[in-house]
């Protein structure tokens, strides 16, 4: 993957996939994080892997910090607010007690996340006691209700924008399952009632409230005491709400992280099983490459954004014209004209839905049958009742019989064959690992597959094949370097991390460039273990034999010739280049008197690119000389 933001500016027609990779931002998301800051959040802890204890408050804060960082990369148009409740100090528009909205300069309470917000939020724990303070907000004898206040503040913040265009959510982090436990009698009933009413009002306005409970190993969070009414859980949902108690810290973090996402449907499609039997499906993009955000051109003098204007000019007459409606393809000494409508008609070989063609055993799906990231499909009964039932039945049969479905997906950009691979649900202590559903894998056409293995076939001798002994040595090596707990997406993308770390530093005017940790490097320490080294040595001896010198054993044929040629050319250039007094020539403006070949001596000798027109070469030499 090449991280080139210039790609964003490519013409859409050049890249029919652009729509496929870009997430549809049909709606924004407004989120208010309500974080309980009562002393209980600080006193309850959860043991982490390395034996240290982490407070619930810390867990909540780090989850939010993590989510903010993801958000500024992926969905920076979404808006967030962070509000603590059960605090000593108060800061909010309504001036309510026991609630503190955290914010930084140049930002409204509910606004897009900024570099400053992320930075300051990262060190909030240090200043928390001093600036905000923790204090129980609901105590007997007082009419204060900090939870009610917090919900009110959140609701008021989320009044922004319409519920149609924005997805509004309140995420509530707490470890107190019975917030009014300390109150008795009528006061308790009253407070419970008003708080629930507050929550209901918010929900009526299209705001969803989600609870992210933190529980301790010995004391499970009892959602039915109060919160089930607040978030509107019933029956079965209630039983499912808490998957497991006494989890490990990592599991708890995983669960919180997953809950913080909202699902976005890419498209609603149907799967037609023939003869008019069609079921309804939703597609989701679970895996898509995350690229550095689009670039914006700025005026380097004022740093103000620039608008790109495209104009079409007729090459024959030089006249300015509107975007032309006709395209042409040179063919047989002639230009064949095609209208845009014709082109889309050609691409429309099927309706924009899935057509089931049949089933094959999973072994028929080869490793090279792949072109793009897969798309996840999940059934829906919203419009066609019975879809889910058929989908589940097919999925179970496919899993049991180890078969996949072949279907034709008539999307408008690239209609193609797809494989539908059934996936059973996989659940671990950290929650759902693989959701149940089918994965749509885009299959290549015959002309998309290349038979490159065969181009270097040696027809005279036959290709070398390993002996059983060599295979055995390889097997021993494989056993030694085994990644037991490997999970597919355990690595952060170092290029992307670096990109955003640099941006954050520059956005905050910091001088030090942060170092990021490249997680993708091999485990040198592990590789240096005597057992591993021995296995490698044995395998090497077995396939390469003794006294093997890798450098000298270059492949025969063109490749080495070419590289030799390149090497001699470089040496020659270095020699030739030494004959000129470059700084002198440059100072006297005589570089333009040299030939391109002569200029290239300098460039080759200094490992610079040799491409471009003469002026480009000269300016490159000047830059290199520091003139």
């Amino acid at each position: 993957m090449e991280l080139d933001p210039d790609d964003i500016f490519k013409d859409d027609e050049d890249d029919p996939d652009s729509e496929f990779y870009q997430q549809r931002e049909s709606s924004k998301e407004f989120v208010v994080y309500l974080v309980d800051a009562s002393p209980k959040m600080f006193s309850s802890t959860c043991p982490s892997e390395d034996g240290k204890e982490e407070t619930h408050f810390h867990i909540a804060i780090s989850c939010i910090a993590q989510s903010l960082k993801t958000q500024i990369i992926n969905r920076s148009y979404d808006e967030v607010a962070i509000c603590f409740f059960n605090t000593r100090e108060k800061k909010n528009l309504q001036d309510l007690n026991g609630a503190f909205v955290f914010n930084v300069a140049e930002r409204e309470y509910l606004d897009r996340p900024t570099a400053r917000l992320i930075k300051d939020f990262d060190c909030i724990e240090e200043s928390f006691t001093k600036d905000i303070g923790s204090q129980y907000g609901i105590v007997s004898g007082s009419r204060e209700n900090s939870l009610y206040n917090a919900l009110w503040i959140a609701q008021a913040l989320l009044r922004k924008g319409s519920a149609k265009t924005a997805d509004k959510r309140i995420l509530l982090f707490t470890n107190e399952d019975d917030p009014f436990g300390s109150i008795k009698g009528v006061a308790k009933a009253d407070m419970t009632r008003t708080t629930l009413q507050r929550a209901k009002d918010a929900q009526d306005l299209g705001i969803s409230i989600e609870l992210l409970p933190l529980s301790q190993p010995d004391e499970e969070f009892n959602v039915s005491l109060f919160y089930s009414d607040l978030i509107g859980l019933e029956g079965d949902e209630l039983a499912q709400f808490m998957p497991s108690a006494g989890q490990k810290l990592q599991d708890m973090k995983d669960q919180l992280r997953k809950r913080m996402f909202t699902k976005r449907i890419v498209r609603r499609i149907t799967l037609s099983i023939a003869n008019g039997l069609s079921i309804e499906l939703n597609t989701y993009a679970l895996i898509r490459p995350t690229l550095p955000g689009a670039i914006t051109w700025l005026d380097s003098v004022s740093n103000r954004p620039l608008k790109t204007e495209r104009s079409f000019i007729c090459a024959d007459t030089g006249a300015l014209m509107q975007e032309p409606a006709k395209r042409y393809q040179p063919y047989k000494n002639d230009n064949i004209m095609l209208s845009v409508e014709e082109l889309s008609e050609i691409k429309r070989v099927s309706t924009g839905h899935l057509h089931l063609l049949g089933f094959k055993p999973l072994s028929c799906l080869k490793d090279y049958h792949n072109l793009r990231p897969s798309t996840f499909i999940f059934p829906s009964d919203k419009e066609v009742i019975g879809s889910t039932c058929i989908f589940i039945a097919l999925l179970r049969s496919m899993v049991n019989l180890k078969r996949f479905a072949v279907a034709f997906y008539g999307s408008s950009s690239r209609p193609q064959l797809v494989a539908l691979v059934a996936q059973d649900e996989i659940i671990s202590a950290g929650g759902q690992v693989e959701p149940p559903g089918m994965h749509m894998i885009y299959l290549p056409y015959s002309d998309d597959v290349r038979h490159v293995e065969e181009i270097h076939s040696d027809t005279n001798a036959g290709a070398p094949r390993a002996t059983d002994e060599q295979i055995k040595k390889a097997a021993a090596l494989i056993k030694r370097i085994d990644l037991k707990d490997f999970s597919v997406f355990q690595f952060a993308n170092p290029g992307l991390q670096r990109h955003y770390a640099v941006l954050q530093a520059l956005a905050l005017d910091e001088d030090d460039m942060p170092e990021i940790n490249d997680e993708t490097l091999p485990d040198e320490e592990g590789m240096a273990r005597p057992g591993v080294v021995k296995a490698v040595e044995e395998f090497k001896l077995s396939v390469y034999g003794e006294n093997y010198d890798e450098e000298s054993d270059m492949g025969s044929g063109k490749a080495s010739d070419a590289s030799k040629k390149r090497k001699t050319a470089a040496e020659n250039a270095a020699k030739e280049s030494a004959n000129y007094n470059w700084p002198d020539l440059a100072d006297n403006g005589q570089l333009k008197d040299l030939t391109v070949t002569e200029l290239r001596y300098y460039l080759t000798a200094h490992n610079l690119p040799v491409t471009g027109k003469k002026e480009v070469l000269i300016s490159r030499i000047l830059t290199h000389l520091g003139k």
Partner: protein
Amino acid sequence: MARNKEGLVLLLDVGPTMYSVLPEIKKVCSMLIQKKLIYGKFDEVGVVVFGTQETDNELTKEVGGYEHVVVLRNIKVVDGDLVDAFQELPRGNFDGDYLDAIVVGMDMLIKKYQATNKGKKRLCLITNALCPIKDSCEGTKEDQVNTIAAQMSAHGMKMESVIVRGRLCGGGDQRIMAENDRLLNLFSEKTSARAVYVESPTALLGAVKTRNISPVTIFRGDLELGSKMKIKVWVYKKTSEEKFPTLKKYSDKAPPTDRFATHEVKVDYEYKSVEDPNKVVPPEQRIKGYRYGPQVVPISSAEWDAVKFKPEKSVKLLGFTDASNIMRHYYMKDVNVFIPEPGNARAALAVSALARAMKEMNKVAILRCVWRQGQGSVVVGVLTPNISEKDSTPDSFYFNVLPFAEDVREFQFPSFSSFPASWQPNEQQQEAADNLVKMLDLAPSAKQEALLPDFTPNPVLERFYRHLELKSKHPDAAVPPLDETLKTITEADPDLLSEKKNVMDAFYKSFELKENPRLKKSSKRLLEKKPSGSDEDYQDTTNALVVKPVKVEKIGDSSPVQDFEAMMSCRDSPDWVSKAIQDMKNKIYSLVENSYDGDNHGKAMECLLALRKGCILEQEPKQFNDFLHHLFNVRQEKKFRNFCESLIPKGLTLISKSEAIDSEVTDDEARNFLVKKELKFE
């Protein structure tokens, strides 16, 4: 360009047993030439047919023999006539001898190019290999093949044989077929030739490579297993999407009399300051700004180069893991292939040993790759073994890119077990599904796997090139329908469906689908029978909504009632009505809430009246009624109480049945609603 030109000779069997597939052969050959006319204008093609009554080739004149082989066209640069030539492919009435044809083809290539053009000379044979080849006076048939193959290798020729079998050619003599298969496979072993078997017309269309690309390595260097051991490998692309051709923009400005007009359109970009649209900023004065949240951070390229991530070019092993750890759906991109460095026997051995051990143990390797120096990113991916089935081809690996943590969205989906019982298939339904999955089989053991990606042509491109050809003759030609043979790619094979009719019927009977009655009419679109393509239209309109500058998209502050009415009358999408209603509700709500001493009440009242009228017109009484109930319910806040009280004298009440048929409120209830509320206020 010219140095990459390819010399190709097509060897087509037109004997009597081939009649049924000749239409497909015409199509695929035309397509091959058409693509060359665009991408390989300098390529040269010759055509030889065999199995004809006549004989016309140079060898027969020179040395005799080689009967029933006709050189339809000598090797020449591709042109439009060649495409037409396939339309009148002769039908022969003799059994063709493919070996004779191969020799004639070779002779043509040798005479034309001699020793030049090595590696760019290709023979493409299409036959059913049902007829025996003639015995030779010198040695056995195997010896003949060996000699020919040696000649091919010596001249750097390649051969592709497409052998049509199965239901396409009817029965044949098993013994002869076996002999021919053996002989053709001998070619594959002895020289760079490929033989593929096809059993369906669709596969025949896909079996001939119509796209000619010289493969380029993306990496040459070491696969590092730790610091101590390195294996020399070359990495190529294994799959790569063949794109729809990029067409040029056409300018009609040139006068029709200008015969030398290029009709090209140049696209010019200008950068203007947002504040002052008249100020043009020269390109070199631009600087890239990277978004970080709401901020845009300006960084010059030089600055960026200094700080950006710069990994070293390398391919390093991270370790091995169980194949089951890597789910198939995590493969991210097109696929690469790692082959041992050509000519390096030790590298081939090392790859072979690892690949075979991985295969046996069901393991895969995880790699970290930086293909080029200066590349700003790394990829992590999975290496899977590819054990070669051909003796002359070395073992290799496939490489698939895996996602990083940032690339995965961990959405949570409900478990199927949590769904209501009515959504769960019962035993009988499950059995029907089992049968369907088993019987609607595309890879039955007796037959060739249908729709194998390697043999499936791209129907869109086929249609495009055919249309192009049509238009070159008749500029007004309409887009042709999808080729009948290619229908089996886009729709289920009717033969297969009728063959498995009872299984299909049982499946239909077991399940019931119905529309959701609770949905509004406007959104019921999935089950509606529409002519094909209408779904695309639907999408087009929704897209149009986004780009088209619609006058009223939300209800503003100045004239909410007019805005609302404008939105309600938007007829291009049903969504507008619900959006308008929702926005109006929000508007009223905020008007009341933000009013000071009832100053906004008048306006809110107007809005409420407009909403009521709109809801009656659009038959959405429930929307209004629910909202009114809601207003009265939230009147615990003082502002709302005042507003609600002011409604009573106006007689503004629920929408009743007589006003909108869908309403659940009778006239009496509507009248009483206010009365009841009035009582409560007191």
